[in-house]
């Protein structure tokens, strides 16, 4: 089974995104053989009250929950965020939490983030840290990346969060190879994070970052992700399918879905 750990639904503020409704996303998934996807709300990236985005997502996923698994976007520094997290997990049955520190302009060192990370851990859901939505080089002039944005500072804070919350399971999302390495170097001995491969600076051949990723953290901590429908799914698939020598069957099964199934407690 192939599980895509990085997918979105909804309207994006800055460009038209095809396949951004549930049936469209399923068509795109079918095109490339993806069985299930962890999806979050694109609206929530830009809404002031991100919880509205989560609620739209939940409503739109009625009838699609077998294949589209919702993740809750949380803005830890917005009032009521812990209650929203509780509602998303307990009442809306969302399986993961996603943080956008750059877009929501907060530091991962903030005490409110601490509460959310602990809250997610207590509820048994993993926390994705999405470093970006789009490539910063194409951002809309209205969006400022905020003081939280500084590649080095941000990855330092990611590493600190991982170290300070050993009971929380993190997924590093849309990281570049360099950003992953900074976190890796600063978190020696920590195994409470996984890394997904959709990042446009996480390359396959000829750089072979996926194999290097496996060598560094092991296949049990690598997640397949495409970032559909913002990105074409094919480049991420090719990162796996064109590996030479090919991945061992067990490693491939873990990366393409097994790890996500375990992490999200999905039925196989």
């Amino acid at each position, binding site marked *: 089974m192939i599980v895509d750990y990085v997918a979105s639904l909804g309207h994006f503020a800055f*460009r*038209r*995104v*095809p*396949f951004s409704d549930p049936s469209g996303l399923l068509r795109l998934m079918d095109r490339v053989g993806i069985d299930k996807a962890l999806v979050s709300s694109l609206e929530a990236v830009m809404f002031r009250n991100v919880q509205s985005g989560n609620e739209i997502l939940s409503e739109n996923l009625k009838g699609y929950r077998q294949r589209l698994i919702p993740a809750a976007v949380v803005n830890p520094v917005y009032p009521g965020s812990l209650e929203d997290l509780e509602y998303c997990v307990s009442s809306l049955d969302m399986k993961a939490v996603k943080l956008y520190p750059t877009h929501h302009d907060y530091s991962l060192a903030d005490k409110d983030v601490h509460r959310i990370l602990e809250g997610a851990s207590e509820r048994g859901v993993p926390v994705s840290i999405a470093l970006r939505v*789009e*490539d*910063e*080089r*194409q*951002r*809309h*002039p209205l969006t400022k990346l905020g003081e939280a944005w500084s590649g080095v500072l941000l990855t330092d804070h990611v590493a600190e969060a991982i170290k300070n919350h050993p009971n929380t399971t993190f997924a590093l999302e849309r990281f570049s190879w360099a950003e992953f390495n900074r976190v890796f170097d600063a978190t020696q001995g920590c195994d409470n994070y996984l890394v997904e491969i959709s990042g*446009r*600076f996480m*390359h*396959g*051949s*000829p750089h072979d970052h996926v194999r290097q990723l496996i060598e560094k953290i092991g296949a049990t901590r690598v997640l397949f992700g495409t970032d*559909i*429908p*913002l*990105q*074409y*799914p*094919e*480049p*991420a*698939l*090719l*990162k796996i399918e*064109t590996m*030479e020598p090919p991945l061992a069957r067990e490693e491939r099964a873990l990366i393409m879905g097994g790890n996500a199934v375990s992490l999200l407690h999905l039925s196989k």
Partner: protein
Amino acid sequence: MIIDAHAHLMEDTNTNEHFLRECKRLGIDMICGFGPPDSNEVTRAFMEKHPKSVIGFCSVIPDDEGRAVDEFASCVQDHGMRGLKLLLHRKATDPAVFRLAEKSVQLGVPILIHTFMRRGIMPERDARFPNESDATDIAELARNYPDAMIIMAHFSVGDWEYGIKAVKGFDNVYLDMSGTGVDLGSVEMAVKQVGGRRVVFGTDNLILAALGKLSGAMIDEETRELISSANMLRLLSRRGRL
């Protein structure tokens, strides 16, 4: 057949050999390769070693004294190169680039120009690369040299909708789909706006990103073939058969 219109060659031969092997393994038949600026001996040596796979592009730093024009002419006329690659030393609107464009028309070869759809949204990048060309600079060059074959590099990096629209009206500007940008819909919009005859496949050494875009784009097969190789073959053949 697939031709990579945008392949960097490094000083390190092993890296180039590895890249070419990977291209072949993954279905890319030929590459338009260029060394670092003013290191055209790297390109010459690689062309000689792989004459059926490597199409050499001359790489120069535009100057006011004419050395770059002379080197460009020598690379094409004496060493069989079929194009020119420009980085970000001078804007596409600089008189030194205009002289190279004029020479490219005389020689009958395309110019591949590093481009970033800047729009002033990254002042730190502007400070670092003040002479980096924007799509509007490419349009200005095209307006001045309508017979030049200008390839705007990695159109899908940065604000690609802006880049496509900036050059849409210039039939002598071609869009190279190389680079890190893999936004779904980018290739389709390029084809819709400028036509399938003005989009060319390229990797910028990111093979899978490019192949993924090529296979994933919702375009007809005839257009996919134009992008894969036919368009580049047409540009490269103005000087004669490859």
